[in-house]
């Protein structure tokens, strides 16, 4: 299916979801849906670097928070429309992703992963000490009550996040099916052999890190408007770090479908659970699910589906079949 058609279908589905939430008549669904869509973006973004290339980023919260705090910083200077803030958040986070990648991606994936962990801690330290954006006291963002033609402001935010979700899924799918996606897969499978086959691994890894970081920053940019009062602890929250890893790993890392399934499933479960059980127990369950899936079902839900339908091996990438004249050998 061509990407243009896919995008159209996604937009229609997105529109349908919006209409359904509207029909339910309660703004709560928009608030909850916003969080789920946010996770779709974060999980998809994480997967571009983690699932496709095999480079684990533990600092998703850092890139998310960069987007959020760019918005806060700019809001102090001059209020700008949210789409522009999204773009700026994306640029800032993409830039930082590129910079960190440049310093650490020449080395083994483990060093990159450790560096992302350290980055999250340091960035939080910097923000906590930066009074301009409120520091540890936090920052208030006053959002308008309503905005035409949506009515309540949350509907507007929901739509923005829906567009971001559709966009990131479309980008992920586009990458997957392109030469870039094949290149990413070789980096994950065997970086040495990839280099020997002519794949410019450093360049591709930098592209992946930049896109991934940028998308996370985009997801973070509207957050201050959603939450109204932004504290470093909520922007750099533990839930972002673990969810952006758990959702793709549970859903399945080899394709754009995995993070989407993981985000919708896990995200919705957590929204329901937060009302009934404490958020700490909530996160604990996510942690256990992550460890459990990684040990027992390393290819996630997609992998399990493939295995039980026995259509093709559960970890194969790429769909283009070659038709040669030779008869297919039975498996």
């Amino acid at each position: 299916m061509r990407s243009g058609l896919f995008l159209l279908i996604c937009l229609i589905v997105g529109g349908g979801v919006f209409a359904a939430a509207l029909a339910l008549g309660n703004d709560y669904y928009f608030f909850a849906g916003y969080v789920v869509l946010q996770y779709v973006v974060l999980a998809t973004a994480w997967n571009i670097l983690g699932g496709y290339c095999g480079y684990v980023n533990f600092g998703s919260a850092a890139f998310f928070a960069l987007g959020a705090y760019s918005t806060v910083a700019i809001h102090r200077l001059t209020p700008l429309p949210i789409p522009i803030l999204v773009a700026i958040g994306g640029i800032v986070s993409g830039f930082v992703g590129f910079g960190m990648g440049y310093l650490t991606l020449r080395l083994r994936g483990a060093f990159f992963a450790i560096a992302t962990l350290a980055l999250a801690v340091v960035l939080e330290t910097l923000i906590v000490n930066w009074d301009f954006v409120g520091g540890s006291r936090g920052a208030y963002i006053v959002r308008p009550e309503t905005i035409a033609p949506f009515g309540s402001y949350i509907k507007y935010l929901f739509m923005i996040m829906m567009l971001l979700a559709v966009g990131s899924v479309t980008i992920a799918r586009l990458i997957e099916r392109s030469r870039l996606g094949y290149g990413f897969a070789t980096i994950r499978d065997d970086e040495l052999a990839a280099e020997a086959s002519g794949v410019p691994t450093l360049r591709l890894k930098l592209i992946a890190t930049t896109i991934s970081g940028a998308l996370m920053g985009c997801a973070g940019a509207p957050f201050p408007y959603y939450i109204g009062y932004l504290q470093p602890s909520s922007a750099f929250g533990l839930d972002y770090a673990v969810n952006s890893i758990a959702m793709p790993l549970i859903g399945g890392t080899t394709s754009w479908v995995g993070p989407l399934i993981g985000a919708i499933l896990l995200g919705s479960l957590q929204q329901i659970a937060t009302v009934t059980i404490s958020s700490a127990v909530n996160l604990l369950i996510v942690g256990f699910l992550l460890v459990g899936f990684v040990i027992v079902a390393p290819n996630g839900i997609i992998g399990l589906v493939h295995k039980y339908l026995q259509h093709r091996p559960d970890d194969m990438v790429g769909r283009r079949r070659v038709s040669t004249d030779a008869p297919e050998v039975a498996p």
Partner: protein
Amino acid sequence: MTGLLEVDNLGKRFGGFVALESISLSVRAGERIGLIGPNGSGKSTLVNCICGTLRNEAGSVNFDGHLLNGATAHQRTRRGLARTFQLPRPFASLSVADNLRIPLLYTVAARGGSHRSAKDLEARCIDLLREVGLDNKANRLPRELTQVEMRKLELARAMAAEPKLLIADESMAGLTHSEVEEILTLLKRLNEHGVTIILIEHIMRAVMSFSQRLVVLVSGRKIADGDPDTVVRDPEVERAYLGQ
């Protein structure tokens, strides 16, 4: 006269251990070179340094008139250097055909000069599959292949990069007599099409029948370089390698 590949006083150490010492080698276009030596003599290290997987501390590598020092492995592959790995390293999550598409997409298509259409590259992929006899396994995963098929895939992937020089690193280890012949035939055919080949092998029969020139590496040093029959009779070579 400068050859296609000029290795000049190449040196490589790992901490205190000297893996390669002052290796000089000149390979002319179209030659068939055999490279032999006991295990641990530095053959694979030499290949890694030539191809850019490892960085040599001393000496230089010149390929096709270009100084390679500092060039990354993928840049060297794009210049026309290809290699197989001693233990096959296929892309495990890609199909056999996709494994061949990678060098086609990233090396052949990335070279300046004549622009190859997507259709052209697809045809080349199918041709290669047929040439090595893997066309009936085109959509399988590498882990479903037999030993000899894996080695053929490894070779085909190097061939897909359309190299000027191919280094075949122990492509025949562990194969039966007829399987060795299959690989040898492939390599000879490649050479007839103009590809320079350096064959690293322990199977003496194959090396002797294939090579126009024999190079012997022992403990990181080159101890012989010349006509195969003469080299094999060299007492130092006998003592160091063949006598073992």
